[in-house]
C-alpha cells in the first residue's frame, strides 16, 4: 500500500506529475497558454461527441461536469445544464461509463468537476477508482476546502487521480502555499468572489489572485469563474498560465449548437490565446 502511494501515479511522468499537470506544463513550456473548457456531462445526446470535438479544436484538457442537485458554486447557466442533464437521466455512473468508452477518442486529459456528496455517497475510494478506470486524470470538488479535502485527497492520490484545489481572492497569504502544496494538476485560481457565470468585464481580482498564487508555486495556475470571452481569457493570461471557461461553453450546449458549434467557440478561445501570447 505504501509503495503504491509513493510511486508515480498511473500515466505520470518521472517528476511524479499526472497526465493533467504534464499536459498543462507542456503547453506552458512551449510558450503557450492553457485553455480548459468545462462541459456538462450527460447534457443532450451528443455531449460526448462535443467533448471529442472540443479536444480537437485546441483544448489542453477538459473539465467534465457531473451534475449535482445542489450546485452552490454555480450560476444559472450551469444550474440549468445540471437540471436538464439530471432530468434526461444522467448519473455519475452513466457519465463515467461513456467517458471510459471514449477516452482514446478524447485524446486530452480530462478532469471531473462535481460536488463532494457525489463522491461521498459512492465512497471516496470507489469514486476515485471509478475515475481512474474511466481514464479520467483529475477531479475538482469545490466544496472540499483545504481543511476538509484530506480524506478524499488521500484516496485520489492512491488511485492516481489529480485533485485540483481552488484558491480564492480572499485567501490570506499564509494559506496559498498550503493550498498549492496539496493541489495536483494545476491550481484553480478563482477569478472573483462569486458564482460561475459570464460577466461584462474581467474582475480586477482575477489577475491579482493569479499573480499572488504564481508567486508561491511553479505549478500551472489557471483562472476560472468569471472568464467568459476570448478577450477576457487572453487578458487573464497576461498573468495566469491559462483559463477555465464553463458558462460560455455550456450556454452554447444549451442552445443546441452541437459538437461543431461548441468546438467553434473553443477554437476562438484557442486562437485568442495563441495570438496574444505567441
Amino acid at each position, binding site marked *: 500500500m505504501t509503495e503504491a502511494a509513493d510511486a508515480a501515479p498511473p500515466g505520470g511522468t518521472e517528476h511524479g506529475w499526472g497526465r493533467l499537470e504534464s499536459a498543462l506544463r507542456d503547453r506552458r513550456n512551449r510558450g503557450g497558454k492553457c485553455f480548459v473548457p468545462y462541459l456538462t456531462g450527460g447534457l443532450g445526446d451528443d455531449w460526448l461527441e462535443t467533448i471529442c470535438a472540443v479536444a480537437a479544436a485546441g483544448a489542453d484538457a477538459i473539465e467534465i461536469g457531473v451534475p449535482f442537485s445542489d450546485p452552490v458554486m454555480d450560476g444559472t447557466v450551469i444550474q440549468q445544464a445540471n437540471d436538464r442533464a439530471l432530468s434526461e437521466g444522467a448519473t455519475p455512473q452513466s457519465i463515467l461509463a461513456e467517458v471510459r468508452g471514449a477516452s482514446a477518442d478524447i485524446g486530452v486529459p480530462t478532469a471531473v468537476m462535481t460536488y463532494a456528496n457525489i463522491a461521498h*455517497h459512492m465512497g471516496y475510494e470507489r469514486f476515485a477508482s471509478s475515475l481512474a478506470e474511466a481514464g479520467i486524470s483529475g477531479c475538482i470538488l469545490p466544496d472540499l476546502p483545504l*481543511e476538509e479535502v484530506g480524506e478524499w485527497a488521500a484516496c485520489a492520490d492512491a488511485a492516481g487521480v489529480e485533485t485540483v484545489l481552488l484558491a480564492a481572492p480572499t485567501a490570506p497569504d499564509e494559506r496559498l502555499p498550503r493550498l498549492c502544496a496539496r493541489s495536483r494538476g494545476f491550481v484553480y485560481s478563482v477569478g472573483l468572489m462569486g458564482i460561475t457565470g459570464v460577466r461584462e468585464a474581467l474582475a480586477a481580482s482575477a489577475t491579482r489572485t493569479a499573480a499572488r498564487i504564481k508567486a508561491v508555486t511553479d505549478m500551472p495556475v489557471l483562472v476560472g469563474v468569471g472568464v467568459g470571452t476570448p478577450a477576457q481569457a487572453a487578458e487573464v493570461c497576461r498573468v495566469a498560465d491559462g483559463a477555465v471557461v464553463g458558462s460560455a461553453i455550456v450556454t452554447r450546449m444549451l442552445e443546441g449548437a452541437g459538437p461543431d458549434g461548441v468546438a467553434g467557440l473553443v477554437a476562438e478561445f484557442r486562437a485568442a490565446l495563441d495570438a496574444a501570447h505567441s
Partner: protein
Amino acid sequence: MTAPAGGFMGEPSADGRFGDFGGMFVPETLVPACQELDRAFRSAWGDPGFRGELDRLLRDYAGRPSPLTECPNLSSELGVRILLKREDLNHTGSHKINNVLGQALLAQRMGKTSLVAETGAGQHGVATATAAALFGMDCVVYMGTVDIARQELNVFRMRLLGTEVRAAETGSRTLKDAVNETLRHWVAVADTTHYCLGSVMGPHPYPWMVREFQRVVGEEARRQCAEILDGGVPDVVTAAVGGGSNAAGIFAGFADTGARLVGVEPAGGAAVGRAVPGIVHGSRSYLMQDEWGQVLEAESISAGLDYPGVGPEHSHLAATGRATYEQVTDAEVIEAFSLLSRTEGIICALECAHALAWVSRARADLAGRTVLLNLSGRGDKDVDQMMGILG
C-alpha cells in the same frame, strides 16, 4: 450510549465536528467568511458585555422568558402530563427570534451592514426582517416560490418590515433551494453582509452558534420545570425537527440529565429516520438522497420542516443514542393541531404539532409520565392552509 468527553451538546471539535458530523464543507471563497464568523462568535460569546446586551434584547424586545404552560385538559385526554414551552408567545411568534437577535447583534459587532437569510415557512425570514429593522440593517431573504405561494402573509410581513424577498426558482423551489441561493448571494458580498442562517445547520460555526443562541429555551425550561417538579426534570423532552434549531435549544437544557430526548420529523422529511450521511450546505450530516447522492426533495404539510437534511449535532445525538427521532405523518399532524386547539385553546404552528402528534401516538407508553414539549411557534401562518384542509 457513550457520552463524549465533555458531555453532550458542548463545544464542537476544533474542526467543527460533533462526532462524525459537521465540518466546514464550503468552497474556498466562503472559508474566510466562516472563519471570521467563528472568531467573532467565540469572542462575543465570552464577552459579558455582549451577553448582557443580548439578554436585555431577549427580555425587553422579544418578551423572554417565555412561560411554561401546564395543559390539564390535554393531559387528561392523553393520560400524559404535558408541559408546553411557549415559544409561540415570543415577539414574531416563534423561537426564531432568539437566534436572529443573537446573530444581528453579532453582525453589528463585526461591522456588517446587511443581513441575508433563507426561509421556509417564513418564520425565520420574518424574524430576520424584524431584527434588520431594529438594527437599521439592509436585508434580503430568499424563499422558494412554492413557499412564497403557501405563506403569503409572511411574505407581506417581511416586505412591511423593509426586507426584500427574493424568489428561489430552482430545484424543488423550497427551503433547500432558498439555502442554495443564499449561499450564492453571500459569497459575493460577505465583506459587508452577514448570512443569518436560521437553523442548526450549515458550515461550522453555524450549527454550534445557532444552538447556543437557542440554548436559552432549554435553560429557562430547566428552571421552570424544577419549580413545578420539585427540583426534578421531565421524563421526556420533545420537539419537532426540520433543521432542528428549536429541538437543539430545548435539548441543550437537558442533555446532561436523565430526561429522554425525542425529536420528531415529518415522515416525508425523515433525514435521521433514513440515517444515510451526506454532504450538503456546508456540513456532513444525515441527508435524504437518491442512490447517486442527488439530494431529494422533502415533502411535508409544514413548510418549515420541508428540508431534506438535519443539523449535524442531531445526527450525532442519534448515532450515539442520546436522542431518538420519530416520524409522524401529515394526517397525525393535522389531528394533533386540532386536538391542541380544541383542548387548550392554543392554535400552534404545524411544525410543533409534529411533536404533539408523536406524544399522542405514544400515549400508552408515556402514560403517567411528564413530557416537556417545545411549542416552537404559533399557528396564525397555517390557519389559511388548515382551513382548506379542515374547512
